Each structure stands twice: as C-alpha cells, then as structure tokens.
C-alpha cells in the first residue's frame, strides 16, 4: 500500500488542516459567554414562572379519612397531594392536628411519630423532627419536613396545601 493512500485515509478522519483552523478570539468568547448568560437568565425566569403556576395546580383539597377519630398522641398515614406522596397526620397530646410529608428530608426514608417522646423520628439514620413545626432537632436532616396545610370543616379534616 502506498504512502498516498495511507495519507488519504488519515485525512478522512481528520479533514481540517491545522493551519486552516482558527482559534476562538477573545471577542467571540465574550459574545459566547454573554449568550450563555442570557440563556441562564431565561432558564431561571422559566423556573420562576413554573413556580407561580405550580401551587394552584398541585394542591387540591382532599378529605383525610378517619382524621376526626384520631386520639391524642396518635398518628395516621395518608397520601397528599397525589397517591405517590405519603404524609403523616399527628394529633398531639394537647389535641392539635399537625400533618407533614412522611418523606425524610435526609435520604427519603419514611418518618414515624414517637408518642412517648412526642417527636417525629426517621428510623434509617436516627433523624428527629419537632412535631410543632417539622424542623429538624437531631441527627443528619438539615431541612424541615414539608408541612401539610389542614382545614377542619363540619364533615371532616381536609388537606388543602403544602408548605416547604
């Protein structure tokens, strides 16, 4: 096989001559970065618009079955806002209702209510949350549990929204 045919095959893989190639100028780089800046600003704006649309769409009013029969110091599980979102409803010793997402903010294990200590606990890594506001009180979690907004009506207790 001749040198010429070898060269031709090599050129098929690398068709650009190095001396014909051109480097990115500072001006082009500045324009490219500014274009990227515009795209990032637009993407952040799109997220803000999505956030404005989301609350109305995501949170219907859903009746929590058996909530009125809950005894002080006990809890029950329900799903809100969709069937894929487990939540926990707690009736504190003083008789107040509190509801939170059951998904631990550390690594998404299911949290449970500990009656004797009046706290919400994650059994996976021993994380603890305050029953009153869902803030982390011990263990690895650093973010509070999302709170389910409740509304009590004559015919029962309704979940009507979520607060992070």
């Amino acid at each position: 096989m001749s040198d010429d045919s070898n060269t031709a095959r090599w050129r098929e893989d690398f068709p650009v001559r190095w001396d014909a190639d051109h480097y990115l100028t500072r001006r082009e780089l500045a324009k490219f970065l500014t274009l990227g800046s515009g795209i990032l600003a637009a993407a952040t704006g799109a997220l803000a618009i999505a956030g404005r649309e989301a609350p109305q769409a995501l949170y219907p009013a859903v009746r929590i079955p058996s909530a009125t029969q809950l005894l002080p110091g006990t809890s029950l599980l329900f799903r809100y806002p969709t069937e894929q979102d487990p939540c926990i409803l707690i009736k504190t010793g003083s008789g107040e209702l509190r509801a939170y997402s059951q998904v631990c903010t550390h690594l998404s294990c299911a949290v449970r209510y500990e009656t004797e200590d009046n706290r919400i606990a994650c059994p996976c890594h021993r994380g603890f949350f305050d029953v009153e506001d869902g803030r982390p009180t011990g263990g690895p979690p650093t973010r509070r549990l999302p709170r389910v907004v409740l509304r009590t009506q004559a015919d029962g207790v309704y979940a009507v929204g979520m607060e992070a």
Partner: protein
Amino acid sequence: MHTRQQGTVLFTGILVLIGTLVIIQLWLLTAALEALLARSYEVLVPASVASGVLFVFNALLLRYVVTFDDRVRREERIRQR
C-alpha cells in the same frame, strides 16, 4: 489615545468578570431549581430578577468592551497611515 496593550488588558479583565458573573448565574439557576423541587416558591422570583440583572450587566460590559476594541483598532489604523 488608547494602545492595543491597554485594550488587551481591559478585554481580558472584562472577560474574566463576565465569566465570573455567568458562574454566579449558574449557581442561581441550580438554587432556583432546588427551591422549585423543595416547593420554596418565594426564592424563585428574586433569583430570576438577580439573574436578569446580571445578564443586562454582562450585555453592557460586552457592548463597552467591543466598542473600546473597535476604537483601538481604528486609532491604530490611523497611526499606521
């Protein structure tokens, strides 16, 4: 009168500044995405406004530096004649 060297230094400095602001915008975007997923909607609008302001600032910097560069090149051509 501006020299090409001055233009190069200015261009490099502004390029670094634009790059830094783009990185801040990237951080704002990731923070906004995390806030959206955590349903902390109150963070989203300020993050969006801040990102928009940075973009406008970047665009003004680009306009300034390109204008400056053109002026330097024009003055250089006049001197060469």
